[in-house]
Each structure stands twice: as C-alpha cells, then as structure tokens.
C-alpha cells in the first residue's frame, strides 16, 4: 500500500493520436500528459473538436483501427498502448470504465436494463446469472433508481433521461473499476438532474477510491467536480493545473476567452456575450505554431513559428503560451470585467 499509494494509478505521457479522416490524416491529439493517483479527479475542458473525446477513447482503446497512437498510457505501471484487443477487452468495463454523453442512445433498446447492468459482471467475474441479477438490482438501487427490484426487467424506453443515465452509471461501475472516464455525462440532461448525477458520480469516486476523468465543455461543472483540470484546444493541452489555480489565474488567452463567453447571472440586460472570434482549426490542417494563434488577440510573429512549450506559472500550473507575461497581466482585468 505504501508503494502503490504514491505511485500513479494511470499515467499518460506525451500521448499523440493520428486519425485518418476523409480530409486526410489529422493530428487529433498531441503532447497530452498527466498522471492520476487513486481518488484523484481530473477535468478536461474545451470546445467541440478539440480532442477531449479522442483522448478518452484512446485511454479506452476504442479508437478505430486506422488510428495511430504514440506516447504511453500506463495503468499501474503496465503499458496499454499497443495492447492486443483481446487483452484490452479484459480491462474495459473491469478496470477502466466509461460513462457516455447520451443516455438515450447508450443503452440497447432491445435488452432489459437489468441484463445490461449485469453484463459486465457476467463478463469479468465468475458470478452466475442469478448472482449477477441480484448484484444488478443492488447497483440500480445504489444509483438511486426508484423501485429497482421491480424495474430491473424494464426496457430503456420506459425510463426518463436522468434515470437512464443512472442505469449507465450502474453499468460502468458494476465491476468496481479503478479509472472512470465520464464523457460529458450531464450534457444531455436537465440542469436539475445534472447536479444529482454529478453528486452521485462524486460519491462513488470518494467511496471506492477511483480516479476520475471528467470531460465537459461546461466550466461550472468542471469547477465544482474536479481537483485538477486541463484546458484543451486544437488537440493540445493549452493550460493545466489545480482547478482553483486555473480559475483564479487563467494564464492562456484561450482559457480567458472561454470564461468571457460564459453567460452570467446579474449581467446587465442586453449585454452581449463575448465570443472568441474565428473557429476551431481543422485538425487535418493545423497551423505550424500555436494552435490558437489565428484567434488570439495578443498573437505575435514568433507564436506562429513552433508549438510553444508549456511554461510553469505556479506550482503544477502550466500554460502553453509564449506571452504569459501579457496574458496574465490582462487576466486580472478579465475577472474584474
């Protein structure tokens, strides 16, 4: 225990993913590194198409065969990159699990929810059908599905969105995984349900000492649910650090832009939200320098030469920007505005 408590449970080093898209080969993710110990939580934030989900799928080993993965992903010291699919199948749902964005489509409409929750148990443990069913009922009860024993034989269409997301959580947690990846678990749900689901996930993480990677485009969700966060843009991590530090200091112009684009309560009527001009670059056609250069207000010529190296601006707080001196001086103004 003394050794494993300090060693990271999952360690990702310099992860890169090349995807073959219809528009040519694309560098979907590059230079992503992080390490999580048992019980630690990490948030991935960024707009659509910035590489969050690709990173998650790379961890799960679920990218298409044509994808080329470089770098290293280690689960308790054993390398996952290049692992055969048969061996990966033994890990998925057992040691690494994933919760998906769309609870409406993440369940098979043809099977009862009890069967779907029991499935990973049957697959990864030696329990009988009867035991798995009992365990499924207990799990469904634990995730707060009312009347679990009665509804275990119902089909997904007979549940509401929030209830279905509870079922997918039960499914993901059936085998008590070490690492949980939650890919926008509340995006498709009502705001009132969002809080309940996130609390439920947080309870499980604390209760079972799992590591969690929470993916979201919602800064509020990230702020309240994870210890550390990474801001992704154009397939790279542009800022990473403790959630508090990132939120108070905001080193990267992109992070600042995300904050400005948030709607705020109490803003004067008629105030327009500030947007980040331009669009996310095509991953098949990334600029050579900083990926954010084309949309950045404080861009200089040297930004376009090569991808900047992350700069430490505080303890464990890195910013991938050449102009942190300017951006961080301005950041004070952003929060005040």
């Amino acid at each position, binding site marked *: 225990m003394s050794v494993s408590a300090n060693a990271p449970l999952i360690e990702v080093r310099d992860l890169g993913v090349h995807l073959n898209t219809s528009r040519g080969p694309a560098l979907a993710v590059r230079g992503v590194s992080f390490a999580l110990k048992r019980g630690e939580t990490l948030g991935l934030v960024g707009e659509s198409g910035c590489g969050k989900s690709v990173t998650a799928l790379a961890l799960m080993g679920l990218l298409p065969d044509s994808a080329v993965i470089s770098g290293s992903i280690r689960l308790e010291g054993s390398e996952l990159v290049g692992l055969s699919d*048969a061996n990966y199948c033994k890990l998925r749902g057992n040691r690494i699990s994933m919760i*998906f964005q769309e609870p409406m489509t*993440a369940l098979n409409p*043809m099977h009862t929810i009890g069967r779907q929750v029991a499935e990973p148990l049957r697959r*990864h443990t030696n329990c009988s059908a009867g035991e798995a069913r009992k365990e499924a009922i207990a799990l469904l009860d634990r995730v707060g599905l009312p009347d679990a024993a009665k509804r275990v*034989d*119902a089909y997904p269409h007979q549940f509401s969105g929030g209830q279905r997301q509870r079922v997918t959580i039960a*499914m993901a947690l059936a085998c008590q995984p070490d690492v949980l990846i939650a890919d926008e678990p509340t995006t498709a749900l009502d705001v009132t349900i969002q809080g309940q689901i996130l609390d439920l996930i947080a309870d499980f993480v604390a209760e079972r000492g799992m590591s969690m990677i929470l993916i979201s485009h919602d800064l509020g969700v990230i702020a309240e649910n994870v210890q550390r966060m990474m801001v992704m843009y154009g397939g790279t991590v542009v800022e990473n650090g403790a959630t508090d530090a990132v939120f108070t200091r905001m080193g990267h112009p992109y992070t600042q832009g995300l904050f400005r684009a948030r709607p705020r309560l109490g803003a004067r009527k008629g105030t327009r939200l500030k947007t980040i001009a331009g669009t996310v670059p095509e991953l098949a056609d990334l600029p050579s320098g900083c990926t954010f250069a084309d949309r950045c207000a404080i861009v200089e010529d040297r930004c376009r030469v090569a991808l900047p190296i992350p700069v430490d601006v505080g303890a464990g707080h890195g910013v991938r920007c050449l102009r942190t001196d300017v951006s961080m001086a301005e950041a004070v103004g952003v929060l005040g505005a």
Partner: protein
Amino acid sequence: MSTPLSASVEVGATTAHPRLANGFWRRALRHRSFVVGGTLSLMVLCAALLSLVWTPWSAYEIDVASKLRPPSAAHWLGTDVLGRDIVSLLLVGARSTIMVGIIAVGIGLTFGVCLGLIASARKGWTEELIMRMSDFTFAFPAVLSAIMLAAVVGPGMVTSIIAIGIFQIPTLVRLTRGSANAIWAREFVLAARASGKGGFRITIEHVLPNVLPILIVQGTIQFALAILAEAALSYLGLGTQPPQPSWGRMLNDAQTLLFQSPMLAVYPGAAIAVAVLGLNLLGDGLRDLLDPRLARER
C-alpha cells in the same frame, strides 16, 4: 413530456408477468395484422398438410374428357385443360410453394445474414471480399443460375430451390450489412465495447437483435419473391417438374387459355396473393411484437 409518468405505470403492469412469453402471446392475439397474417399463413400451411392425407380428386389423374369444366358440385372450382381438379391442384401446389419458399429463404437468410454480419463486424478486406462476391452473385439472375445448376445436376425442384436460395443471398447480405453498420455506429455498441465485449458477442447480443425486425420483414418479401421465381423457373421447365403441381406451373399453364377460361389463372394467382399477403402481414406483426419499444399495450 408525460412519458416518465405514464411509463412507470406501464412498467408496473408489464412486470407483473415476468415471463416474456406470456406477455408476447397476449399482445400477439391483440395485434390485428399479426392475427390476420397468421390466419392466412396458417390456411396455406393447413392446405399443404391436408393435401398429404386427403384431396377431393387425385391431383395427378388426367381426365381429358372432362377438361375445362366450370365449377360444380363434383369439381368445386372446375377442372383444368387436362381435366384435373383445381381444388386438388391448389392443395398439392401449396406443398411445393411452401417448401420452395421456406427452404430457399432459409438458405438465403442463413448465408446472407451470417456473411452480412461478418462483413459489418470485420470491415477491411473481409468486408470487401464478401461484398464483391455478393455483387458477383447478384449479377446472375435466378433464372441464369438455375440454368447453370440444371446443366450440372439436372432440372427439378431441388435445383430450383438451391438456385432461388443462392439468388436470395446477395440481397440479404447487403441488407444485413447496411443495417448492421448502422447499429455498429450507435452509442450503445460503443458502450458495450467500453464494458469489455468483443466483436463476436456484440454481433450476437447487440447487432443481431436490432437488425432482426428488418430481416423478418425482408424475409417475408423474399418469400414472395421465391414463390414468383419458382413460378418463372417452372415455366422454363427448370423448376417443379410435371406432373408435380405448383401454383407457378398452374399460372403458366393457364396463360395460354387466358381468354377461354380466365378463372384458371385467377385461382392460383389468388392463392399466391393470399400466401404473400399473409406472410407480409405476419412479418409486420412480428416486427412490432419483437420490438420492445412498440410493445405497448394497445
């Protein structure tokens, strides 16, 4: 949205019968097209079974003296050009119709669905190979493959069944692969993979049940096509051989006398229509009943 509320009431009702079979028959008997389709199909089946033990007259006995009789007490639907009793011919013909249909569609479904699922699950060169082979088979009409087959093993019912069966495969391969690809792209398949399932299990547990309703409906259509193909092959002398009657042969025999005694074509035509309609309705009903989303109390 009142779905959650009404849904929970419904769950209480359905889970009172934990055994699916119970609920299935209860719902099935209330499903109109299932009942009508089932009845019509059952009629055809009964006719075929009845012909094994009893027919009003012999279907093989030729009595040219009493040819082309109108309906009477002795011959309920009259006689054909060789003086054979129409009712008896229809009853015995049902046998070959059902046999050709079931076996040919069985061949088509077995190979077509397996190959389609493999193509969809494996992708890459396996998929290419299967699809190009199916294109190749598709290029030959049933008639042509039957002629080729007949040249090798001689004409007859078995030849025509195999030829029709082979002719069904490419259609079903394409349909299965296309529908299966759509299922593979669904998120619950990704979720199943994320819970550690391999390609084979996903195919059996997730893909097949979801494409089954489409296959059932297509299966009934293929059955109809098989009956028609059998008629065409019989006409060319490659299918059911005389004196063995079949609805297709009866139709073709009747066509030379279309103006003298049009009813000769109407009877087997109506029989084919009843069989095809029955099967289509049955397929429709089955599709509804097998889909839990549509399995609401009506």
